[in-house]
């Protein structure tokens, strides 16, 4: 990144120009690249044409013999490729030899800088660099307009129809790290929340239970004896049985006790009425040791 000084103001700050610096390419390398691209285009075009011809020739029962047209095309293109390589070397050598002369011609000594051809060319190049982003934007606008006019859905459908999706899927499965892809995707998702929001868990569980023999699963996987021992221990079942059978199991005993309780209450009400008492008796539970330990207030307790 290249630091660029902001205009000098009292509160000026230095901002960093994040635009990449584009170095002008070497002329020889650029020419070489252009030539290679040109040959690449020719090769692709020839490949398309020759493949169509080969498709016609390799029809049913025609065998796999190489077409002479292909050989002829390879000879022509190979000759042109060799000539281009030779021309490139000659041009490279010539440019190296001519570069001092060109330098003198472009920037002749004794000529004012404003009148030097090199400087004029530099100005033109700088102007082009300045205007180039605008032209790129124009291209993007044109491309966008063209794309807007195209039915991308139809285009995609046609592309997909012509694609060998099996091969494509195989290639994707071979080249893509699906584990890492899924892991990254899951890292960005709150999967639990997604499931809670979008899955009918009751229905899922109901369907799962329909397909699973839960009883058999429990019988096979759970130590029921251990569970039973745990429950019996947790609720102290022996103590419950002992209490139930030892004290309150008999209906006769239970009835006798309840009748005794009712009789106690009846007698207490009768006595209280006899002594014109209005307040209920104070018979608190003896489960409150602090109050019971000291006993009720003697002043209010005639007993």
């Amino acid at each position: 990144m290249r630091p660029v000084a902001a205009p000098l103001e009292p509160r000026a700050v230095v901002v960093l120009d994040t635009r990449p610096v584009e170095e002008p390419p070497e002329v020889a390398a650029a020419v070489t690249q252009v030539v290679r691209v040109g040959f690449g285009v020719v090769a692709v075009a020839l490949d398309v044409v020759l493949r169509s011809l080969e498709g016609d020739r390799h029809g049913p029962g025609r065998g796999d013999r190489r077409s002479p047209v292909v050989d002829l095309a390879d000879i022509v293109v190979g000759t042109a490729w060799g000539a281009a390589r030779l021309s490139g070397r000659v041009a490279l050598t010539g440019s190296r030899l001519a570069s001092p002369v060109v330098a003198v011609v472009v920037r002749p000594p004794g000529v004012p800088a404003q009148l030097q051809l090199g400087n004029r060319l530099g100005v033109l190049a700088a102007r082009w660099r300045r205007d180039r982003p605008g032209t790129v934007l124009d291209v993007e606008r044109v491309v966008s307009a063209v794309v807007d006019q195209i039915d991308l859905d139809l285009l995609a459908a046609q592309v997909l129809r012509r694609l060998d999706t099996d091969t494509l899927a195989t290639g994707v499965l071979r080249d893509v790290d699906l584990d890492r892809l899924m892991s990254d995707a899951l890292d960005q998702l709150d999967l639990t929340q997604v499931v809670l929001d979008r899955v009918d868990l009751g229905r899922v569980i109901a369907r799962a239970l329909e397909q699973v023999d839960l009883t058999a699963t429990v019988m096979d996987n759970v130590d029921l004896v251990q569970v039973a021992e745990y429950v019996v221990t947790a609720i102290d079942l022996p103590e419950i049985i002992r209490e139930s059978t030892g004290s309150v199991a008999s209906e006769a005993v239970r009835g006798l006790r309840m009748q005794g309780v009712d009789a106690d209450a009846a007698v207490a009400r009768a006595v209280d009425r006899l002594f014109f008492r209005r307040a209920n008796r104070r018979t608190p539970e003896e489960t409150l040791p602090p109050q019971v330990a000291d006993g009720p207030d003697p002043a209010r307790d005639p007993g």
Partner: protein
Amino acid sequence: MTTVPSGAGRARPHIDPVPVEARPIQGRRAGVVTRTAANVVDFGITVGVLLGGYAAWSAARFLVEPAHFSWPAPPFLAILAAGSVVMGLYFTCAWATTGRTYGDHLLGLRVVNGRGERVRWGLAAVRAAFCLVVPIGLFWSAVSRTNRSVQDTVLRTYVVYDWTTRIHRPGAVGTPT
């Protein structure tokens, strides 16, 4: 095979064996009717014990002198003394061990001290003697606003409804219900 988690540190659930209709009265002081009924049962037991002793004594006499056997005729005071001893021991042992005589058990009662615990041997013996000397003191529980007899008032004991079989030892933290 799934294992059952350890129950360590988990509170044990309490399942109350007492019928629902009787739960509200558990731990409350009993009235005169149930206490009298329990004492009647205990009195019957005492009479039964005396009759058993009398039968054993008679059988022993018959075995020793069958030719001159006659039914023993103990004086009333001896019967009264024997009955008092039997009943006193019975009350003392019952109250000091389980907190209840058989009559108390039948009527769902328990004798506890002021802290709601089982009474100690000494207090049980004193209470048993008090009950034998002043049995009429029981009926003060009908008059008392706190359902306490004379013995309970003096000795600071209580007779409560307790349908469970748990024994509440002296000094132990707990409730009688």
